């Protein structure tokens, strides 16, 4: 089971709160260990710990930054796939003009319905249903195209249309794959949640060793790490959370396909 499927079930707020708890707890454990060491004679040298804690934080920062970049790439891919799909549908719609009747009207009606179904996907939770309906429409479009190709005397026009219809179908698969599989792999999540508590505990341990009280900045440290983690999860799931792929390209396309929406 991929971990992101599990993560998808939680709202972002839960993830954020859980992350804050984990980091805070690790910090506190580290702090108690450090303080206990501080009270004992012959304790560790603060300088030695300082350079190690710096590295630990450096490692965490880098890995977080790279994972963020990975998630941002996935989000971009989802956005790009939607724009490409809208363009492909538009091209197919225009090229259908070159086909003979009744296929022209038939195909244009099917394409309009296709766009409506795609737009529905962004709103409803019934993804499986939308996918099934899209694929049905694709096979109907394809049989229309094959029929038109058999009738027509100019194979070039059908050729153009078929090319663009193939693009539409390919981009459907692309959007599916991007949404379902272009995600941060489980191992990366696991590693992040291993390094994060270790880094927080080391920072806490260093604080405890100096014999001072818990600084207020520690809270900022905990919050920032948790915010970045939540942002990564949000970016990584384009259908969820506050960051979602804009459907504007598809909405605009629907407007140009001049016909009343059902």
């Amino acid at each position, binding site marked *: 089971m*991929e971990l992101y499927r599990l993560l998808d079930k939680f709202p972002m707020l839960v993830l954020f709160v859980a992350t804050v708890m984990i980091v805070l707890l690790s910090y506190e454990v580290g702090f108690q*260990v450090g303080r206990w*060491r501080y009270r004992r004679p*012959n*304790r*560790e*040298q603060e*300088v*030695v*710990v*300082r*350079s*190690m*804690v*710096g*590295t*630990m934080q*450096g*490692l*965490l920062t*880098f*890995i977080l*930054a*790279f994972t963020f*970049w*990975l998630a941002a*790439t996935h989000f971009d891919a989802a956005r790009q796939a939607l724009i490409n799909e809208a363009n492909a549908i538009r091209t197919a719609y225009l090229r259908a003009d070159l086909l003979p009747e009744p296929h022209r009207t038939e195909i244009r009606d099917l394409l309009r319905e296709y766009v409506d179904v795609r737009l529905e996907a962004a709103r409803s939770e019934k993804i499986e249903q939308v996918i099934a309906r899209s*694929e049905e429409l694709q*096979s109907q479009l*394809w049989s229309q195209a*094959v029929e038109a*190709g058999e009738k027509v005397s100019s*194979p*070039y026009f*059908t*050729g153009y249309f*078929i*090319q663009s219809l*193939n693009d539409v*179908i*390919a981009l459907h*698969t*692309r959007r*599916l*794959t991007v949404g*379902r*599989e*272009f995600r941060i*792999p*489980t*191992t*990366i999540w696991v*590693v992040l949640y*291993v*390094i994060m508590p*270790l880094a927080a*505990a*080391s920072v806490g*341990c*260093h604080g405890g060793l100096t014999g001072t009280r818990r600084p207020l900045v520690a809270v900022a440290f905990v919050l920032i790490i948790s915010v970045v983690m939540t942002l990564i999860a949000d970016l990584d799931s384009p259908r969820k959370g506050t960051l979602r792929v804009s459907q504007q390209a598809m909405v605009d396309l629907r407007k140009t396909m001049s016909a009343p929406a059902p």
Partner: protein
Amino acid sequence: MQLHGLIDALPLWALFVATLVVALISFEGGLWVGRRSGSLPEPQEEKVVSRLVGGILGLLAFMVAFTFGVAASHFDARRQALHDEVNAIRTAYLRADLLQDPHRSEIRNLLRKYVDVRLEGVRSGKIEEAITRSEELQDQLWTQTVAARENTSNSAVIGNFIQSLNEVITLHTKRVLAGMKVRIPDFIWFVIYAITMLAAASIGYHAGLTRSRRIPVAPALILAFSTVILLIADLDRPLGGYLEVDQQAMIDLQRKMNAQTR
């Protein structure tokens, strides 16, 4: 001796344990050497050592983090190649519909077999065999296409099909390259392990020099680095890791093709 051959041969948990042990031994070695040095260092001398250790650790963090970035983008490239291939096969399969029988059904059969071979290759891990078999099927597909061309007058349709078949063949090469050949070079592995050992030894030396006691932060740091190195090895490994490219898109294609057998 190929270093990544060695790294691939070990199971991932063994690699993790080996990394951990190597780093811990280096740490202990450094500690021993540090404690052996005569008197306690002057504060100035200690400062110099501290700076040097910080530098080595910073370099290690950079190296590990960048290699992680490289491995993650290789993983994404493998995923992308699989997805492009699925789309190309699907397009070729659809376009074969426009050819004349018997070529039409012959080509569709070959493409179905092709998908089976691709999936079987990943499932069984016998990659070399699958590659040979795939290339045979590609030759047969090509022969069929040429034969179909001689039997029809409609050159546009054949042209369309040839385009998509070429795409399938190109993407086979691309997938083989992305899967098998694009790996983290041996020299980078060598450098990562060398720096890890040196860094662990210098933390130990620093601690020994200042007569510091054993610190819980040191094992935590070593654990964090070993985890990230494990992740890099896992991301870089084409088969047999915890992270495998999800074959769902190809499985979906297989299902669709079998449903469309007409």
